[in-house]
């Protein structure tokens, strides 16, 4: 121990640098230059609009007219606006209705797709991704027709068994279920593949050992699959939550009579759609920006909760 130490101390000093100082500086800066494109593009298209939104939110801002500084008025108005709370409630409801079944379904499907005796596994694994690569607008238009009150396939089938036609777009719960179904349809394949990837990282002998010990399929699922997937489950909860809070295209395209409010009583207007209505329908960029800030805060809160959860889980392991 001592010898090594002393040897280290007596070792000859490093040779003096031979290159010019300018080149050394270049070498030190090079890594930053390599990563710069991302940060520059992020600054232009991500950070600047974000900061500018905070700025605009403090104004009564007509995009083609006057900009008057009004401080926090947009925010106080927002907190008193029943339309804001309605949109926030719709957003959370649609998020819940789409995320919970989506994750449960994806988990089950991933378990099935991972089964050793499944034939044509690759075919099934690839086909679950098809909804994900279909355009949202196309999905929405097709679903809106399937769920149509008078001419929809679903109501026709219901009619065959004597159930009265349901007007999905006009009721609050109906429109939420319809939008949640579209979101579920679009995303569950993607989530399934994420789960499947982590499942394949679990050694097969764990399942085999459990099977030899007499664990049923359900017990294997409950005690092996779910615990080993915990990190990726947390990840999917967070990503689908952030996505779910920003649902826009589906409600926008659903109601042709009142597109910006998603129906006559704003029954499925989400926060992003409310933002769009105020900003681009009513020319109130300031108020629209304030709604954007509220949405930003909501997403940050969700991200923080995730951070706390995932550190706790890491500590448990």
């Amino acid at each position, binding site marked *: 121990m001592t010898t090594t130490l002393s040897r280290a101390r007596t070792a000859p000093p490093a040779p003096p640098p031979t290159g010019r100082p300018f080149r050394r500086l270049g070498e030190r800066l090079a890594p930053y230059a390599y990563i710069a494109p991302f940060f520059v593009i992020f*600054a232009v298209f991500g950070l600047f609009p974000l900061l*500018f939104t905070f700025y605009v939110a403090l104004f009564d801002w007509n995009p083609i*007219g006057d900009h008057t500084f009004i401080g926090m008025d947009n925010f106080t108005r927002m907190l008193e606006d029943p339309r804001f709370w309605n949109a926030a409630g719709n957003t959370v409801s649609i998020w819940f209705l789409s995320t919970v079944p989506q994750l449960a379904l994806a988990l089950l499907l991933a378990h099935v797709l991972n089964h050793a005796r499944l034939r044509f596994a690759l075919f099934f694994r690839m086909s679950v991704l098809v909804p994900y690569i279909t355009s949202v607008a196309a999905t929405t238009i097709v679903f809106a*027709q399937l769920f*149509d009150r*008078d001419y929809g396939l679903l109501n026709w089938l219901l009619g065959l068994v004597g159930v009265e036609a349901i007007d999905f777009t*006009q*009721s609050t719960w109906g429109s939420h279920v319809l939008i949640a179904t579209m979101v579920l349809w679009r995303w569950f394949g993607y989530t399934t593949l994420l789960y499947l990837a982590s499942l394949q990282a679990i050694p097969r002998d764990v399942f085999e050992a459990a099977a030899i010990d007499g664990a049923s399929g359900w017990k294997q699922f409950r005690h092996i699959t779910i615990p080993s997937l915990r990190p990726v489950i947390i990840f999917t909860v967070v990503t689908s939550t952030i996505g779910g809070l920003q649902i826009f295209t589906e409600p926008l395209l659903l109601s042709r009579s009142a597109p910006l*409010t998603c129906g006559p009583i704003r029954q499925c207007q989400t926060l992003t759609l409310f933002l769009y209505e105020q900003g681009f329908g009513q020319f109130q960029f300031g108020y629209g920006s304030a709604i954007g800030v509220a949405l930003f805060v909501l997403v940050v809160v969700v991200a923080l909760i995730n951070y706390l959860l995932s550190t706790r889980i890491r500590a448990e392991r």
Partner: protein
Amino acid sequence: MKLRTAVPVALAAALVLAGCSPGSGGDAAGTGDGKSFEFWSFTGINQKASVDAYKAKHPDIEVKLTEVGTSVETAQSLTTALAGGKVPDLVLIQGDDLPKFVQQAQNFIDLRTLGADDIKGDYLDWVMSQSTAEGGEILGVPTDVGGMAVAYRTDLFAAAGLPTDREAVGALWPTWDAFIETGKTYKAATGKAFVDNAATSVFYQSVNQGPQKYYDDKGGVVYGSSPQVRTAFDQALKAVDAGITAGQSSFSNGWSAGMAQGQFATLAAPSWMLNAIRSNAPDTKGKWDIAVIPGKSGNWGGSYLAIPKRAKNPQAAWNYIKEMQSPQSQLEHFVDSGSLPTTPSVYQDPALAGHKDPFFSDAPTGTIYTSSLLGLKPFVIGPDSSTIGQEFLNAITNVEQGGGDPTKAWDEALKNIKTAIGK
């Protein structure tokens, strides 16, 4: 480490951007080649026909026509462009969207500087007054107006034992109450819906027929106290209550399907609606006819051509307006595509008065629509007119399709309007 360097870099970039964004897009007016120009229109109004005719007469002029989307989407794109993007040289604005732009007149060229005073007498004055700003600036030239009528299915009327001749049908409904009564007769005979919906076909028509709508002559909002608005609203609720509507919102999927399948026998048809019927239900050709609207007169819609202040080729755009919106050109456009001229001097022209539309059983569309304009008492359209109208529409649709309580609908509508526009 990464973050610590990233933040100053990002901030610097943001500052640079902020520094150069306001106004330094810097395209000064009138810097184009002076002959060619860019034109934004909306879909379904067939401006392409006019542009093609213009290009045929002037082969040296390049007109870049973009059909941005619906009229509302076009207005939204224009807003974004005016706020700091590349503006077109010429833009078509729908009447309901116009007041918001007229209030911000500084964004457009005052067409008087290009000679609008010489031609303004050619157009209906109440149409012209809507594109004139407070200071007298003329911001737009009207391309068409939306005279009103009712389109009805002769085959379905015959099946219900109702008359099919357009004069006799028009005589069935001198008033909206009579229209609703006719609907009840039809419903009793066939068990089917009479009209597509109450919100647009009854309320939107009826409210457009009085001398005062949502604003008084001085520009104050009177939507809550105007008897005309309340009457129109109650008539729509009455139609819902009578069970004569199909509950199909205009331009929805079900509406198009229902129109093709004869789910309803009538719908309100402003002149521009005829094209929508033709394209949605091509197989019903010859089964339609057009009768006079209850209350005889009214206007819904119509559009204007305007030139943004930052346009590069304002003179070229103005030359186009002057030539293609002259009374004679509007008459030709009517014959081609059915848009109703805004220039009363051609209303007696045989090409218009004698025009018959084979899709609608050879109805004399020119005469029917121009006569709906002649008895018209113009009303003031304000900056929040479209928002107010949409909230009333929503309240009626909610009763009609969402099972809302009709006794609370009026108060709900007033409350929602107050939340939306703050007064």
